[in-house]
């Protein structure tokens, strides 16, 4: 769907060229929700804007549905942009226009619908995002979550195939964030959308994304399915994002693990095995004694997962580990 081939970009600061994105490759498949996570200044905002050419690449090739984005002329680019919706951190609504007029805006720019068609499409979109009764209000009269819903309705007005989300929930409180993410997940299925979102919060990635790329100082340092990256982060930057979202102080935790008696393992359960009564059974069978140092059970998207850090003592530890592996639980020795 979206492909980057050796794409790179730098900015000029005075006489110096500063690399915003080092050459990278990336493929985003049709229908997936692809997340890009990075600290501010990592280049994620630039990467996102390359897709609809709000920023143009210095080199390399970007294709969207097979079309070379950089080769488009002005009118080709406008056509492409109408097929790519975008929502923003600060919503970027027109303050002087009503909610309904904001949603109608892209339809009027395209100019290929009659006024009645526009009105009925706007009504339909506002109903879908749950803002029908606010149609005649101005953006300043809405809450942040409502504003972003207007942004979503506006972005979907021209029936795009791709939706770009630029830190779309970063200005919202946790509860509103969840409801906006929920809406995106629903719309993705209803409209067969491919969603690319950038964020600095692992929690956003965990809730809606299928795959994720971790960006650090202009380089993609890790890519993979959200479950893999979230449960088994490899790069330091990724680990930091995961710890942050779990509110874990990894240095403090390491001290605790070292202090624990016995060998320390981290077990990761995925899917149905999360709820299986495995731990007690293994302990009985192999005679190991365990203490739980740390644990969490949650969901990634709709898949449940569990992660337990255990200290194991006595009994047949190797046999216990084999039993876990046989039950599709991944095991890492920490200490």
């Amino acid at each position, binding site marked *: 769907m979206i492909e980057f081939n050796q794409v790179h970009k730098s900015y000029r600061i005075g006489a110096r060229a500063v690399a915003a994105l080092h050459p990278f490759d990336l493929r985003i498949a049709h229908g997936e929700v692809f997340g890009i996570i990075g600290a501010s200044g990592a280049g994620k905002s630039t990467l996102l804007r390359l897709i*609809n050419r709000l920023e143009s690449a210095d080199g390399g090739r970007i294709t969207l549905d097979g079309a070379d984005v950089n080769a488009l002329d002005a009118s080709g680019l*406008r056509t492409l*942009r109408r097929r790519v919706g975008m929502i*923003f951190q*600060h919503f*970027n609504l027109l303050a002087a226009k009503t909610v309904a007029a904001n949603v109608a805006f892209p339809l*009027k*720019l395209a100019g290929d619908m009659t006024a009645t068609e526009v009105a009925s499409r706007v009504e339909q979109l506002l109903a879908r995002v749950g803002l029908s009764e606010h149609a005649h209000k101005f953006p*300043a009269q809405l809450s942040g979550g409502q504003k972003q819903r207007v942004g979503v309705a506006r972005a979907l007005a021209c029936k795009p195939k791709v939706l770009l989300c630029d830190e779309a929930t970063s200005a919202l409180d946790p509860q509103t964030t969840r409801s906006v993410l929920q809406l995106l997940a629903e719309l993705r299925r209803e409209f067969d959308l491919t969603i690319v979102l950038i964020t600095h919060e692992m929690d956003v990635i965990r809730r809606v994304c299928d795959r994720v790329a971790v960006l650090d100082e202009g380089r993609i340092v890790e890519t993979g399915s959200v479950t893999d990256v979230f449960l088994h982060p490899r790069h330091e930057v990724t680990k930091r994002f995961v710890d942050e979202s779990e509110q874990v102080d990894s240095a403090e935790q390491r001290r605790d693990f070292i202090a624990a008696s016995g060998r320390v393992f981290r077990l990761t359960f995925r899917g149905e095995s999360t709820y299986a009564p495995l731990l007690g059974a293994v302990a009985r069978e192999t005679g190991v004694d365990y203490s739980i140092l740390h644990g969490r059970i949650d969901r990634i998207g709709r898949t449940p997962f569990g992660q337990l850090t255990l200290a194991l003592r006595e009994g047949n530890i190797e046999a216990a580990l084999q039993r876990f592996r046989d039950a599709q639980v991944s095991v890492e020795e920490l200490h």
Partner: protein
Amino acid sequence: MDGSWFGNVDWHDIGTATLDTLAMLGGSLLLTVLLGLPLGVLLFLTSRGQLLQQRFVYAMLSLVVNILRSVPFIILMILMIPLTVFVAGTSLGVAGAIPPLVIGAAPFFARLVETALREVDRGVIEASLAMGATTGQIVWRALLPEAMPGLLAGITVTAIALVSYTAMAGTIGAGGLGDLAIRHGYQSFETDVMFVTVVLLLVLVQILQMAGDRLVLRYSRR
């Protein structure tokens, strides 16, 4: 001069002068907006980091605007007499006053337009671009409507500046309240005439400011 209050005041003259002032103000304000608005939009669009960034064009426009703004209005009027005669057929009366008023006020208004457009959230331009808007659509459908309160405030300030310019224009034969104030009030020591004209100008300015404030409020959505 007799001793009664307002003995020197010829109310018929005052009426004519007031109408002349209003005609000068209305005509010049309309033309100032028609000329200054596109100039201000162009200044904004060609400035750094904007849609049509053009350093040379911006520098040239900016220079012309600055030159015109730095010439004192009374000198500008005199300098412009040949051009005024060419354009309006005369350098006297209401018609003769309008060209220098417009040339004096349009660059000022253009700067106010530029500033008002700068106040528009950049995100709105970006969102419009992302929706596939052309530059023309961005100007007409996004920038100008979003900047409306600022533009209306700019028109108000310009209108009030034009009131004082019309009074100055009176000194070179434009007529109006300023002319009356200078010929009768100042040169002939008819203090009562001076008083009446000044009060009328004050009322005019007051009305313009109040009307402007109301319009600004009406279009403010923040």
